[in-house]
């Protein structure tokens, strides 16, 4: 029988690789009796689903811009080639 720690490791890995059938059954059995690991599993999947939105959100933050110095430096580099 898996404990919560072992289950959390396998649940995370299930997002990165196919589990063996033994591992799948062991996780399923644990989730059947453990509401906390069920929540954990749902939350990991939810976070995974939110990451695309995070990227959009993070790149929309208009307070971060190229500094004038960096812009000038890049322009000079581009001029050498173009």
């Amino acid at each position, binding site marked *: 029988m898996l404990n919560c720690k072992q289950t959390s490791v396998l649940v995370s890995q299930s997002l990165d690789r196919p589990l063996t059938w033994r591992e799948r059954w062991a996780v399923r059995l644990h989730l059947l009796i453990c509401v*906390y690991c069920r929540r954990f599993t749902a939350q990991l999947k939810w*976070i995974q689903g939110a990451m695309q*939105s995070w990227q959009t959100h993070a790149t929309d933050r208009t307070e971060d811009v190229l500094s004038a110095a960096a*812009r000038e430096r*890049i322009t000079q580099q581009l001029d050498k080639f173009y």
Partner: protein
Amino acid sequence: MAANPHDWLNEHGDYLYRFALTRLRDPHQAEDVVQETLLAAIKSTTFAEQSSPRTWLTGILKHKIIDCMRKQLREIPASELLAEEDANMDEFFDDTGHWAEKPQAWDIPHDALQQKQFLQILQQCMARLPQKLAAIFTMRDVDELDNEEICKALNITATNAWVMLYRARMGLRKCLEMHW
């Protein structure tokens, strides 16, 4: 090619910079990869008319970011990388493998405002993760690279990758639970 690289810088420079900054966190490194991206774009002949310049430039940028991350990781031995937060991992479970703090039920954001608040907290929690964990997690769950590609790109083993992804998810989940 009709496009002018100076237009790329004007129209997409800030976007590319922010994209790089979310992954590398260091403003100087972010500036450098933007510069490398635009220079590579000039020399490249692969621009397909059907893709937008921004999509195309972002594709080049992703590779430059991975190169930069690989260099960062090379400076740290894998053993040290994994040992870095070993102490922190003990806080999640007690000695018998049970949750030290039991996962709580979360409210799913219902409307656009809540969704936005959630993303702000997610952003803060991502910023709190150790940079390398955040970076590999981003490659996996945002770029959707498979494990093999990540291992090859960063020159780490599959086991290392799983452990780092696990730590990233545990840290992120805990942070979200505390602040959401």
